[in-house]
């Protein structure tokens, strides 16, 4: 077994130009998903039968089916449906097929990430003690103020480790974007490999880049966690310490739950 180091270096340079696409996919998807997932989490917590049923069904569907299948399904459904709508319903000569396929990638990954993140935010909101809201209301804050100033900041800190995990798995899942003809790291390296059938080297390069990116993302999240959880360090009362201990346990267990 021989590995051509020269080819690996060339592929590495080519694949590096795919990093912006991968990062864009991850970042834009998060940007779309985080607010929507948050509202979905709130929607599920309110004891409204119909809305929480629908959200539950959606989350169960997304988490119960493989993302490859979701990608293939939506990539074959969306362009033709949109084309049909533009041609026959709106009667325009607009060409949907000229769109950058990255739009479909955003759609599918967002649909997936919203479901995962809504569960993350839901459990994070539940970790914030109900007494916090009562305390805020008792000093005369409105419910909106209490949420924006007291509950949500704490919930976001509690959610951060899981958001980090979701980001890592999203980053890994973007490697499937090549199925939607998006030219990300994987696609570029595969194209390079196909010329001389150097697949092993190409995939080793992709692997190295993903480990690199994943490390950077995890370091960023650890930094954010450390700087945002400063408030916990000031806690001195035993009951408060217990609370932060529970928070950290919840974070640790759910980190494990996310698995690999």
């Amino acid at each position, binding site marked *: 077994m021989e590995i051509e180091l020269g080819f690996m270096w060339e592929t590495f340079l080519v694949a590096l130009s795919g990093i912006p696409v991968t990062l864009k996919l991850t970042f834009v998807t998060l940007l779309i998903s985080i607010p929507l997932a948050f509202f979905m989490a709130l929607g599920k917590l309110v004891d409204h039968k119909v809305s929480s049923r629908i959200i539950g069904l959606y989350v169960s569907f997304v988490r119960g089916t493989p993302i490859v299948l979701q990608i293939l399904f939506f990539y074959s459904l969306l362009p033709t449906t949109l084309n049909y709508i533009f041609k026959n319903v709106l009667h325009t000569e607009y060409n949907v097929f000229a769109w950058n396929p990255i739009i479909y990638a955003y759609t599918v990954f967002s649909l997936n990430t919203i479901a995962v993140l809504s569960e993350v935010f839901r459990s994070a909101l539940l970790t914030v003690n109900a007494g916090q809201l009562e305390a805020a209301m008792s000093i005369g804050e409105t419910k909106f103020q209490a949420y924006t100033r007291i509950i949500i900041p704490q919930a976001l800190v509690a959610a951060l480790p899981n958001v980090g995990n979701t980001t890592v798995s999203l980053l890994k899942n973007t490697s499937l974007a090549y199925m939607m003809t998006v030219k990300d790291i*994987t696609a570029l390296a595969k194209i390079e490999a196909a010329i001389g059938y150097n697949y092993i080297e190409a995939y080793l390069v992709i692997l190295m880049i993903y480990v690199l990116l994943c490390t950077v993302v995890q370091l960023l999240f650890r930094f954010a966690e450390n700087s945002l959880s400063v408030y916990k360090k000031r806690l001195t009362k035993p009951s408060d310490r217990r609370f932060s201990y529970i928070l950290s346990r919840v974070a640790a267990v759910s980190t494990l739950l996310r*698995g690999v």
Partner: protein
Amino acid sequence: MRPFKPTFIFEVLPQILPYTLVTLGIMLGTVFFGGLLGLLLAAGKLKGGRILRGLASAYTYFIRCVPSIVMLFIIYYGLPELLLSFGININNANKAVFVITTFTFMFGASMSEVFRSAYLAIDPGQSEAGLSIGLSRWQTFRRIILPQASAVALPNFTNALVNLMKEGTLAYTIGLIDIMGKGQLIIGLNHGSYALETYIAMFVVYWVLTLLIEAVSKRLEKHLLRGLRPHEEAVSKEKSVSKEKSVSEKILYPIYETGILNKLKQSNGFFDVSMGKARSAGSKPGETENDQNRFQRTQEDNSWKLN
């Protein structure tokens, strides 16, 4: 555009269903080998020296960062070459071998964390108690630790298993014919038409499989927790119920709040009205006996506070 044909879903389902066995077989093989690898890694993390612990953690970290599809292709292209340099030819081996090898590496890493957390979740006092009443080490592990640890590990294991099934669909990219592979074949045979219907059929199969796995896991968890004494179970149930209640209270707080406020407002209004009537019937405020009394009382209170 060709119209959507829902009946085709039911035509495809019976063709796909037999291949569930392939998917389940792959999962079974992976769980066996991945479980062994996970045990080794967990043992390394828990009992190993500095080097072993570091290696096991590094392995888990590394695998966590690798997309399954990349790993799958590295194994698929790399393993035969690697073994060929040792004189072993597996170029004609079944595709399932590569799939199981790949997912053993991936699944082993997550299982190591499952085992580790389950082991750490059991209080050391449990094994001490077992040993102190004269059980052997093996008996303590088998009868005391294992039943409790497996109950802790089960939800995490189920999660990993569902993940494995979902990631396992990638096997079609190297040509394995499982649920996904068969679906792709059917689409290919129809020259790309009825793709949506086929995908929906596959969605149904995978979704049902996930729900089944989760249901079985829930039943099994109940079975494993049967050792809890009745009062403990009641306590844990009570806890979960009260927790649930506080949650809904918290979320429904605005509604409670408005309700309480409305009631308060109403009662205040009622009170004011009656007072107003009293005043209008009598004279200016401060002149009625009631008001004077109240004034005195507040003065008394304040003086008491000041002194």
